[in-house]
């Protein structure tokens, strides 16, 4: 296991596998950061239920764009140009959950508390990671992601208080995002994930992170009076 901590100055001396993995994970992270606004800005900014919600959608997008900026800077400094993700169509996003468009307020609310939570998990993988410039940008990004999760959770609760018809719509959104959330952790037993761990770029295996997420999210869904979807139905990566 690689246990050193490295700076930008050390990057050139690193093993080609380390360089390739770090470059890859930064590109995917940048794509996920900008992928969020591309999912919800077009339809949700004009359609949010109140003016305040419209402004919060804009603020959330601003924070995600800033996360992109920070990740793009870390990547760019080591020679990895991630700017192509700014203009690529949603269908080409690295992660399935970002391919498409959010068209309902229910989907937007549930996306916040289920998918932004994955964002937090992905970022937690880099805590104490071997590449210090990446470690340094984490605290502010994670704090803002926590705000997005909380907003999504509160908006979901607000919707649930509106009666059975609304509850059914929220449950449909949960059924949609829950499965996609579980897929976002990648394949169990992934050889690449092991190499990330070997190089100190991630902490948990895909299956560990997924299992931690399930343990955290399932009680929240139950407490909200929602059904936990079948964790295997419609999954692409087991």
């Amino acid at each position, binding site marked *: 296991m690689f246990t050193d901590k490295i700076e*930008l*100055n050390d*990057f*050139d001396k690193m093993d080609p596998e380390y360089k390739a993995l770090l470059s890859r994970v930064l590109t995917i992270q940048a794509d996920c950061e900008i992928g969020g*606004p*591309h999912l919800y*800005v*077009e339809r949700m*900014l*004009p359609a949010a239920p109140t*003016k*305040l919600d*419209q*402004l*919060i959608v*804009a*603020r959330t*997008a*601003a924070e995600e*764009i*800033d996360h*992109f*900026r920070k990740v*793009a*800077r870390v*990547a*760019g*400094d*080591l*020679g*990895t*140009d991630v*700017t192509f993700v*700014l*203009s*690529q169509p949603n269908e080409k996003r690295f992660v399935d959950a970002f391919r498409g468009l959010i068209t309902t307020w229910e989907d937007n609310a549930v996306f916040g508390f289920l998918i932004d939570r994955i964002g937090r998990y992905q970022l937690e993988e880099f805590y104490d990671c071997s590449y210090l410039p990446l470690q340094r940008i984490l605290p502010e990004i994670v704090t803002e992601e926590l705000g997005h999760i909380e907003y999504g959770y509160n908006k979901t609760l607000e919707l649930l208080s509106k009666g059975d018809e609304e509850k059914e719509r929220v449950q449909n959104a949960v059924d949609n995002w829950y499965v996609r959330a579980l897929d976002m952790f990648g394949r169990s037993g992934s050889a690449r994930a092991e190499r990330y761990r070997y190089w100190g770029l991630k902490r948990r295996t895909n299956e560990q992170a997924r299992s931690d997420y399930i343990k955290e999210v399932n009680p929240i869904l139950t407490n909200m009076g929602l059904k936990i979807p079948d964790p295997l139905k419609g999954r692409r990566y087991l």
Partner: protein
Amino acid sequence: MAQAAPNTEKLDEHLLEIVRALHGAVKQGVAHLGEPKIVDGAIVDCEEILDVIMAGDVEAWLSEAVA
């Protein structure tokens, strides 16, 4: 020392400016929620800024920044 990707610093500065402008518009709107004209104007500002970002035309952004 690794060779930085082209325009890394310029893009960083440009995006930071955009993010600040967006936060400024949001703050303006939130501070005037009871005043429809101001809040609507702030939302339009947010939409216009976000339209540019969503288009993702990095080349145009950076040439504007230089000009």
